[in-house]
């Protein structure tokens, strides 16, 4: 869910609607995470553009989506690649020398290599359009992420 905040030519700027990261949680009233995700500048950082083929106007609420498995691919790229490289570096360090200091250093080098790999992979995903949100439909009145 997102709402239109600006129209620029044939494109619109959308801001995702977010109450809290765990807004749907049954215990959200007592949860320490309440409010952390709703800080305005966090939402501002996640504004995005889509092509305005539907004639959207400022203030309209829309439902947007990404390709199937895009979230999985993105998660693998952002977290699994650096983590695997870091653990791989640790295994090599431990196997080669066997001291904690060398293993930690090898893990840090592995993490940096993993981040570089992650950057390359993210660029490829972006070029394929896997990370681009697409307009699905206009939101129904009162509709939210959990309804």
């Amino acid at each position, binding site marked *: 869910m997102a709402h239109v905040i600006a129209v620029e030519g044939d494109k619109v700027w959308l801001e995702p609607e977010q109450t809290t990261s765990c807004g749907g949680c049954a215990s959200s009233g007592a949860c320490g995470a309440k409010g*952390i995700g709703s800080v305005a500048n966090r939402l501002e950082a*996640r504004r995005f553009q889509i092509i305005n083929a539907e004639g959207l106007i400022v203030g309209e609420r829309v439902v947007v989506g990404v390709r199937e498995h895009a979230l999985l691919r993105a998660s693998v790229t*952002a977290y699994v690649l650096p983590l695997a490289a870091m653990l791989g570096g*640790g295994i090599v360090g431990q196997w080669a020398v066997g001291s904690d200091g060398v293993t930690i250093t090898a893990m840090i080098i592995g993490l940096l290599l993993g981040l570089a790999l992650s950057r390359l992979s993210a660029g490829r*995903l972006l070029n394929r359009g896997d990370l681009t949100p697409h307009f699905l439909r206009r939101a129904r009145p009162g509709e939210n992420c959990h309804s």
Partner: protein
Amino acid sequence: MKEYILLMVSAALVNNVILARFLGLCSFMGVTTRIDTAIGMGMATTFVITVSSIADWAVQTYLLQPYNLGYLRTVTFILVIAAAVQFTEMTVKKVSPPLFKMLGIYLPLITTNCAVLGVALLLVEGKMNFISSVLFAFGSSIGYSLVMVIFAGLRERLVLADVPRLFAGPPIGFIVASLLALAFMGFSGMSTN
């Protein structure tokens, strides 16, 4: 080698952080409505738990223990975890802004996920060496992700099930979670073999 494998299996299945230690229950109930989001949350948490546990081990071994600052452990670990989450967020944002826009939603929730602090405290309590600490943290986070995905799959099926009106939503979710915990109790038999 065998002891390391047993340590990981024990951390992931026998002493599962969610179903045996009851940590990280907020995200367990809040982010398991869809398998996709559960996988995303699981991977992000796996990364943060592993990285912050390594940092926590280093802080404990090279700072808190030599200077007898054990009473500052919880506060220090919370600071290290918050820094690890912030580092992850900044890195993902720098490496790929579109990835950050897609996945950034999970990171604030991890900061207050007690499973991250719980794992760090458990590995200090267990007086583990560095390799054991890394494997314990990684195994625990794999167990966390596994349970998140299994529970998300069950909840996706529950939406289609004909549940009595009074039990619909969170109540049937809790009942299913308790049955899942009972099923995981079966793994505890493995530790005596």
